[in-house]
């Protein structure tokens, strides 16, 4: 951790420390949240949430100070399987580089991991990183080409021909894509060196910019020894796009969770207003620090790097 701090400090990144308790979160229907209650004798009670990532605060800071920042923060994700690769409370290293895009972030991450790796780190974790687009991976390992499967009917037909009958006719493009990706592609991804899988399908909605003239987004994920360890966006700054994302994803999240009585976090309706023409171009990387450490030590279980892992308590 100290080596990473030194590396980032020397390159002009400012270390920040933002709250773990937040009155609102970015709506992300696929991440379940922890909620807790703030009780004040004078101000009454209010629901607060444990952050699943420090993104919400760090993006506000970038808009204010317009420089590259990072932090190690405790993050919380509920309803994930407690076990070798997941602990509901974990440490994330998140670094945002201004005037930088997703491409340049690959080189930054490559140098960061290469320079700060622990002695004896397995070579499968060290540079050079192999780069591949999601569609190249799908074509190579899954025998399907996303460029020609943008229509949901065609994607379902392809899924059927590959042995995955889709029974639910309301299944989204994203879900059918992930069904094929997880079954046919991910298990075959090369593991001899770190792999950057870039250009994710635009249908997987997130706050990463669209890649103009393509069906993809400026987003990549880093896999090492088959484990996802980092996720990067070329950060969306268009106010209207962010507003639309908030509106649609909050509606989706609320409709999915209300019948199941799951936590529906509040959202800040004015979050999009932090962006706009003066907001700097930036690229953010969220790196699972515990997973990185686990792999650098040649381990296959987070229990080797997290003290008092939840798996020891509840399993």
């Amino acid at each position, binding site marked *: 951790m100290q080596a990473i701090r030194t590396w980032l400090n020397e390159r002009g990144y400012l270390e920040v420390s933002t709250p773990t308790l937040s009155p609102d979160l970015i709506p*992300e229907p*696929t*991440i379940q949240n922890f909620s807790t209650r703030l009780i004040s004798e004078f101000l009454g009670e209010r629901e607060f949430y444990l952050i699943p990532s420090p993104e919400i605060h760090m993006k506000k800071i970038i808009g204010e100070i317009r420089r590259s920042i990072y932090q190690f923060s405790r993050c919380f994700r509920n309803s*994930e*399987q407690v*076990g070798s*690769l997941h602990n509901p409370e974990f440490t994330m290293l998140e670094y945002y580089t201004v005037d930088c895009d997703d491409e340049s972030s690959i080189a930054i991450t490559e140098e960061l991991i290469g320079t700060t790796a622990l002695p004896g780190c397995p070579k499968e974790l060290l540079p050079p990183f192999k780069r591949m687009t999601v569609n190249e991976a799908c074509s190579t390992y899954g025998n399907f080409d996303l460029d020609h499967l943008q229509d949901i009917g065609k994607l379902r037909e392809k899924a059927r021909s590959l042995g995955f009958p889709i*029974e*639910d006719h309301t*299944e*989204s493009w*994203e*879900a059918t894509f*992930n*069904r094929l*990706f*997880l*079954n046919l592609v*991910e*298990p075959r991804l090369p593991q001899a060196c770190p792999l950057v899988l870039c250009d*994710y399908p635009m249908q*997987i*909605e*997130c706050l990463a910019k669209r890649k103009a003239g393509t069906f993809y987004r400026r987003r990549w*994920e880093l896999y090492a020894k088959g484990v*996802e360890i980092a*996720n990067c966006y070329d950060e969306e700054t268009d106010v209207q796009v962010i507003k639309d994302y908030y509106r649609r994803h909050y509606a989706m999240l609320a409709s999915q969770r209300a019948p199941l009585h799951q936590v529906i976090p509040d959202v800040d309706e004015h979050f999009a207003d932090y962006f706009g023409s003066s907001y700097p171009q930036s690229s953010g990387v969220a790196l699972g620090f515990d997973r990185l450490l686990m792999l650098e030590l040649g381990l296959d279980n987070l229990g080797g790097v997290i003290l008092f892992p939840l798996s020891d308590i509840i399993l």
Partner: protein
Amino acid sequence: MIKAGQIDKGTALLIKGQPFICVEREFVNPGKGSAFVRLKLKSPSTGQTLRETMKTQDNAEDITVEDRDCQYLYNDGEMFHFMLTETFEQIEIPMTSFPDYQYIMKDGETYRVTFWEHSPLDIQVPAKVIFTVAEAEEAIKGDTVTGATKMVTTETGLTVRVPIFIKQGEKILVNTETKEYLERVNK
């Protein structure tokens, strides 16, 4: 029918007419995507393994199974021989279906065996088992490096990496899934 998200380790499923037992289950949320469950299924009769990744909302055909107490008698190199404690009936289970169980199960001990339509599907071994150290190398004098370990063999033939202070005849608690030493048992 059950939802794929409800499948747990030990759940018995019928796939293309053949019974399978779930031996590993992992929930996966592909980056910003819907919830999936990754399953490793094993056919107890053939030893064949299947890997399936399903949406948690997908349907799967589960089968009703029955657990019965069986005393483990011995193995003959090909088959595990058990006796049903209720009826004294003897049954055989191919060792290839549970390749490492010969080093975990103890002769004469009773285990829960899962049956489907009178055929044994699964042997349930406890997650943690106390073994006696049958063979252990002597600690080398002067070897005081913190965290030093050595290999020992249990009475069942399981080899386990243990801290250097463990001696022959001592009892140790072992995780039967990872085969890792957990602690010395002082009783």
